[in-house]
């Protein structure tokens, strides 16, 4: 009987440990966003690790909105792209090794946002398909060159038909998968990722969202144990 109790207790402990939430607060995850809050963000051209050549260009139309609504001043992309182009820079990868403090001198930006597109794919299966967009975000301080915030996410949008009629499903899957735009999915990725970012000065919750438990620690290189 005693042993049974012990066993029960042990299994309960295992259960409890298994249930520990991966969620941490914004303050715990990204303390530097509070000790050194940036006001303006320079979004450099996305770094493309996907197989789609047009991904960075299309993606660039989706990023200013969520960052601005998070309370930051986003350096206007047509301007920054124009000025960077003049310097022969069209890919963010060219800037990754550049001393981040240069962006303070050149543009007076407080932080630089690097977005790496890891996936921008359409997949077909016999009975299904999906559109996948995956991206990683790094916000780097132009004062200290340190990473202030990092997060990554992958969104898989299922495009399978499910009428129960196999032939009809295969056809409708092919059609919807082909028609599904990456951009709405990229927007969902942005919303998920930017939701973990402590908000900036134009947002009414600025400086007050530290206790928000919205960061999955497995999705940020800064909180992975």
């Amino acid at each position, binding site marked *: 009987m005693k042993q049974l109790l012990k066993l029960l207790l042990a299994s309960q402990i295992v259960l409890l440990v298994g249930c520990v939430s991966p969620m941490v607060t914004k303050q715990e995850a990204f303390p530097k966003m509070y000790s050194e809050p940036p006001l303006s963000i320079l979004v450099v051209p996305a770094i493309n690790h996907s197989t789609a050549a047009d991904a960075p260009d299309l993606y660039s139309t989706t990023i200013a909105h969520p960052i*601005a609504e998070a309370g930051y001043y986003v350096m206007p992309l047509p301007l920054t792209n124009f000025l960077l182009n003049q310097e022969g820079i069209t890919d963010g990868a060219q800037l990754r090794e550049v001393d981040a403090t240069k962006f303070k001198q050149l543009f007076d*930006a407080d932080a630089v946002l690097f977005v790496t597109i890891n996936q921008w794919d359409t997949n077909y299966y016999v009975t299904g398909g999906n559109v996948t967009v995956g991206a990683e975000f790094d916000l780097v301080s132009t004062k200290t060159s340190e990473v202030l915030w990092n997060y990554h996410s992958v969104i898989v949008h299922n495009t399978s038909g499910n009428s129960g009629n196999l032939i009809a499903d295969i056809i409708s899957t092919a059609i919807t998968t082909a028609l599904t735009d990456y951009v709405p999915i990229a927007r969902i990725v942005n919303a998920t990722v930017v939701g973990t970012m402590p908000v900036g000065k134009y947002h009414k919750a600025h400086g007050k969202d530290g206790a928000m438990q919205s960061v999955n620690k497995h999705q940020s290189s800064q909180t992975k144990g």
Partner: protein
Amino acid sequence: MKAIKIITSSVFALILTACAANNNSIYYWGSYSVTAYKLKSEPTAETRAKHKAELQNIIAQADAKNKRIPPGIYAELAMLEAEDNNVSAALQYFEQEKQLFPESSKIIELMQSSLRKEVKQ
């Protein structure tokens, strides 16, 4: 009958929440994302004109919607005017971006001086 009532009221609740969420935004974006995307994916005179009209529409409507004009709208309009050689309009829109968002001062001044240089040449 009851089920229908429940469904309609939950639909209403959904609509209300959707509206509330929308009202929480700081800025008025109009259909910026749609026209910007169309211009990027298919750059033609038509998609460009539509995007320009949308930028002007955002500036005209923001006040009535009780929202602010988003960062970069004036600057983007200035770029389009500069491409069309409307230098004075471009300089003026750049100035408005700077007034609205002082964080842009440095980058706007860079654009203004490069535009003035182009005119002199």
